[in-house]
């Protein structure tokens, strides 16, 4: 829920008459600097600029690479089997043998934290991909077609929003059963309004855009307009949305595991590891909860910063 701002962005709907006959002369925007025919900038060069110009964004991209690496090859490079218990070495503080210490069953926390990356990352990616398809499409259709489609999507989104989202996610997972698939589904559902609204707003402003009208004149049907004109143009905004909600998706999944829903033991997952370690904090074995919590935080942190970075990357105003 990093950018809740997006959800409720109110755009006053212009009265129909006004929309068409508005003082439509080109109000030349503030003339600070405008260069004719901007020189072309390649996406790559622009990306490099974004990364180097803002150290924080650079850091985020670096972290993201690390997370991706851990998710891809993590389980095969960790020093210990993340599932193997060793009760003789239980509850050891961080040491050279166990960088992050060991847990109640003597499992190596470092190995578990790294191995958990893949699951947490997958949950985030899949839930975001799912909601992107569902919410994005629904929102675009609502914004583009208006009318009853808009009303329907709006109602669905409103209904979901009226739920306390985390509790709704809990309810869904509890009702459908304790599984990773259902965590993904629940996370996707609670993010639906966010995506639907952003997509709706973006599609709505583009519905009457010149290039859409022009495409209409070219004989494109509504569906084709939607797919070739509207959808590609709101992709960048949706991409920003995606990287921002990735972090939230991870937090949500971790929250669910924390209260005992979702991931099954002994699968390593950050949320469940924090939950397991929580009861040990008071007795001084802080590392059990701390390192998974830290990993969780870093991942979410990274995705949030990444969101800003992606925003900079796709924002045409920042292109020059």
């Amino acid at each position, binding site marked *: 829920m990093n950018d*809740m701002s997006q959800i409720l962005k109110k755009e006053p709907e212009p009265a129909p008459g006004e929309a068409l006959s508005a003082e439509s002369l080109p109000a030349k925007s503030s003339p600070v600097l405008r260069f004719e025919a901007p020189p072309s900038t390649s996406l790559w060069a622009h990306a490099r600029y974004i990364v180097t110009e803002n*150290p924080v964004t650079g850091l985020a991209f670096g972290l993201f690479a690390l997370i991706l690496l851990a998710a891809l090859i993590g389980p095969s490079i960790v020093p210990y089997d993340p599932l193997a218990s060793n009760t003789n070495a239980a509850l050891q503080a961080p040491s050279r043998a166990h960088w992050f210490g060991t847990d109640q069953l003597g499992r190596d926390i470092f190995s578990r934290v790294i191995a958990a990356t893949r699951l947490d990352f997958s949950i985030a990616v899949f839930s975001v991909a799912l909601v992107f398809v569902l919410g994005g499409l629904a929102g675009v259709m609502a914004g583009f077609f208006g009318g009853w489609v808009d009303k329907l999507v709006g109602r669905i989104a409103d209904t979901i929003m*009226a739920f306390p989202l985390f509790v709704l996610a809990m309810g869904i997972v509890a009702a459908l059963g304790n599984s990773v698939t259902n965590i993904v589904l629940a996370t996707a559902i609670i993010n639906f309004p966010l995506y639907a609204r952003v997509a709706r707003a973006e599609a709505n402003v583009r519905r009457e855009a010149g290039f859409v009208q022009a495409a209409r004149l070219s004989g494109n049907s509504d569906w084709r307009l939607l797919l070739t004109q509207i959808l590609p143009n709101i992709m960048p905004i949706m991409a920003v949305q995606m990287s921002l909600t990735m972090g939230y998706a991870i937090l949500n999944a971790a929250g669910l595991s924390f209260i005992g829903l979702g991931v099954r033991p002994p699968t390593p997952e950050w949320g469940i590891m924090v939950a397991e370690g929580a009861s040990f904090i008071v007795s001084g074995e802080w590392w059990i909860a701390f390192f998974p919590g830290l990993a969780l935080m870093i991942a979410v942190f990274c995705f949030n910063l990444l969101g800003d970075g992606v925003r900079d990357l796709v924002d045409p105003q920042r292109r020059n």
Partner: protein
Amino acid sequence: MLKMIGQRLMTTIPSIIGVIIVTFLLTRVLPGDTAAYFAGPAASPQAIAEIRGKLGLDQPLPVQFVSYVTALLKGDLGQSLTTGQPVTRDIAARLPASAELTLAGLILAMAVALPLGVLAAVKQGSWIDHLCRIVATAGVSLPVFFTGLLLVYVFYFLLGWSPAPLGRLDVFASEPPGVTGFLLIDMLLARDLEGFRAAFSQLILPAVTLAIFSLAPITRMTRASMLAVLGADFVRTARASGLTNGKVIGTYAFRNAMLPVVTTLGMVFSFLLGANVLVEKVFAWPGIGSYAVEALIASDYAPIQGFVLTMAVMYVALNLMIDVLYGVIDPRVRLEG
């Protein structure tokens, strides 16, 4: 204005109906057998069936739904199995606690986030901007349950600065007469400064936990909206008219920038009510969040339904309030009604 409120209320009816239906279905799909729970351990299948009949659980779903809605219209939310009390009474008793905590968290977050966001926007691109971004993002990246645990460990267990996380009031302090349900206010009304201090010190850690979490959206929104406003033509006019920086930022930019922030605040508030679930668990806060979690774990329908419904109604009320507030700030909205 009244007309606008009425209209807003009308538009929320469908989503409330949606909430009722979804909640009902969801709770019925929940695994767990209420009748078995009621019958207690060692009950015979017949006894369970008997109780199931008594609770109406053997009826087809539509019939159950109708009786549920009928009861609902009478203001009856059913009975909680875990507390054994009518849900309405439970919620009425616990709601103020959640509301007080959430409000405190929100106010705290605003007190930090608004200046931070404004500062970041005014000094866009400076180190302060970067710092603000990192701090806010780090805050929202911390899982609330983790923050809460950490704060308790450090401030109560290690340092002993804050009182035991035992809920709203020290065990040996006495509760003020319940006027508003908000302890801080009630304490003041009762002129009990010592009690106020006690309640306040209990409130700090959970409120901080919530505030840390809600810092990011408010800061982000304030910054973004401030940036947009600072780039607006009327700010340029104000500058070109020689108004002081303070006047330009305070009177001209800030108030305009608040418009989208107010909308965000509503979102954040209802979101925090949800996040409360975890915070209340950590701090033994007797609010409705922890109530709902426990009910959910126990497959206790009625409290979940009651909780969700309460939240939905609060969400609607909140948005209404925000619309009104919006109207106070923005004459354009006010005069339309």
